[in-house]
């Protein structure tokens, strides 16, 4: 047999050394795998939500006008649209009819959006939808389109074909499910119900002369703040929210910071664990004795370090692979139960949604460098210390 460039005997010795301390190494492998899985899950969820967040922010209107009285929001008069459109620089003004509907049986909120077939829509996805779907026909048949999350919740509560809304006057309004609405941004579209504006007004209790809010599109983005000031001047009883304000607001909704905090916390925990492992277990007297024996029979410090490197690499790389696979399964197959809500900062009132699959080499590399080299270092340093000791002293 030809001599191999890689010292397979050394590799075999390392594997045997791991198997000799089976119980200890299996526990390390399990703990390590769980830590890598936790770390990876945090990165995967964070990436998916960041992707969704960025997509949502891109579709936001430039200005939203809400009527406020005593710090609380009220419906706004539709005829204000005429005054606002007259402001120089305003491209279009859309009065929106929308609101939340609390479905007590499931304990979640649905977002109802009323669509007027003949008006400009505030989002391009809705614009495309009104070209395909006739909301007049939907209205005539008392029908609606629902997001995937809404459909699933309704199904679980035996509403397969229709749903009974309770109107503000206590009477029921039966709406048939005509189809499922799927937007590019699942986080946003998941809890949505689309119906004609008239049906939406009936269910949400909004009178025909009122809207939930008014959305303003501006020709030149640089003029947004000036136009916002002008609107505020004309209607002092309104809150004028710009896209930049909304970005901040969205970030608060998703509680992005808490996600980052958790990631940092986990990294600290992981590093802490490794340091504790290094300090507390380091090398026991039997391991030191073994290193001394190997040195005495002709192993150099380099040989010892290579052997320990193989041991550490085998454990840490297997843990890394298992941890990442476990995290992929947990996040993208199980949809990250528990952990996702910490990141979203969502209350359970939101409908569940599927995290989009976002996996990049950079994230995998970060996880690798946060786990494998740290463990290898923690294993090699005490071995280097032990092999640098006086051999005679160790083996006597």
């Amino acid at each position, binding site marked *: 047999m030809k001599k191999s460039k890689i010292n397979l005997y050394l590799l075999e010795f390392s594997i045997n050394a791991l198997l000799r301390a089976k119980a200890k190494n299996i526990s390390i492998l399990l703990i390590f795998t769980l830590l890598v899985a936790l770390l990876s899950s945090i990165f995967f969820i964070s990436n998916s939500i960041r992707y969704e967040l960025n997509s949502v922010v891109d579709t936001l209107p430039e200005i939203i006008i809400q009527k406020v009285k005593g710090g609380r929001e009220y419906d706004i008069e539709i005829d204000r649209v005429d005054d606002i459109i007259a402001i120089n620089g305003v491209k279009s003004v859309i009065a929106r009819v929308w609101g939340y509907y609390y479905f007590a049986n499931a304990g979640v909120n649905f977002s109802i959006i009323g669509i007027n077939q003949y008006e400009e829509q505030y989002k391009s996805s809705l614009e495309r939808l009104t070209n395909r779907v006739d909301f007049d026909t939907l209205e005539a048949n008392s029908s609606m389109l629902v997001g995937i999350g809404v459909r699933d919740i309704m199904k679980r509560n035996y509403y397969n074909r229709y749903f009974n809304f309770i109107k503000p006057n206590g009477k029921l309004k039966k709406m048939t499910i005509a189809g499922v609405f799927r937007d590019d941004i699942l986080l946003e579209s998941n809890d949505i119900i689309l119906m004609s504006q008239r049906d939406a007004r009936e269910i949400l209790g909004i009178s025909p002369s009122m809207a939930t809010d008014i959305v303003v599109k501006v020709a030149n983005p640089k003029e947004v703040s000036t136009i916002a000031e002008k609107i505020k001047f004309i209607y002092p009883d309104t809150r004028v929210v710009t896209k930049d304000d909304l970005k901040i607001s969205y970030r608060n909704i998703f509680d992005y910071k808490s996600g980052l905090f958790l990631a940092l916390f986990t990294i600290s925990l992981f590093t802490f664990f490794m340091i504790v492992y290094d300090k507390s277990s380091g090398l026991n007297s039997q391991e030191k004795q073994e290193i001394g*024996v190997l040195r005495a029979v002709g192993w150099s410090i380099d040989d010892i370090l290579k052997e320990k490197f193989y041991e550490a690499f085998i454990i840490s790389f297997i843990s890394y692979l298992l941890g990442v696979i476990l995290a992929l399964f947990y996040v993208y197959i199980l949809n990250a139960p528990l952990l996702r809500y910490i990141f979203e900062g969502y209350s359970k009132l939101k409908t569940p949604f599927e995290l989009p699959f976002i996996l990049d080499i950079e994230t995998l590399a970060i996880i690798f460098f946060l786990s494998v080299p740290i463990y290898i270092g923690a294993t090699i340093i005490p071995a280097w210390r032990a092999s640098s000791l006086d051999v005679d002293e160790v083996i006597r």
Partner: protein
Amino acid sequence: MIILKDIVKEYDNIIALKDINLKIDSGELVILKGVSGSGKSTILSLIAGINRPTLGEVIVDNRRVSKLQDRFASLYRRESIGFIFQKYNLIPNLTVSDNILTPLIPINLREDEVRERLDKVLKEFNILDKRDIVVKNLSGGEQQRVAIARAFINNPKIIIADEPTANLDEVLSMSFIDIVKNLKDNKKIIIIATHDPIFFDLDIVDRLIEIKNGKIL
């Protein structure tokens, strides 16, 4: 040839060896005699290159062993020294074969050569049937034979044994002496540190050197 020249060895300001001058020729069997703590084992470890003198030089075949860097000292131990330790210093959870092969691992020899060398020493020291047994399950005598086989796997020029019969009964001690007789026939340098009188009157012994309080008497 081994030369120890003006050797002084101190451990934490305690003098273990003082003014040691010794020359051992190829093929010689030398017994270092002395009570525990006299300095015999320290001389062995200096010759084996696992310890360095505080002063003086250890020269083996014109090589200044006491001045070698770690990498070369390891190479020297691997190629030239077969050390039989008093407590055998085997790795208890490894099999007989794996223990014997430990000195060969860094060399990365061809598989057939490794197998050949292993079979040879297993036969020579009568442990062929024990090759796959985990060392901790062997008797003291069997463990010593494994330790001797390990010392021989690299076919070293110098065999060093530290109190080889300290943990053996009379029968096993005699068996060890038979092994030493065979080694002597192979023209190797053999240095045995012991205070067991069984070695003192052996006709195969070339020199009996007495050590007392770190000095050669």
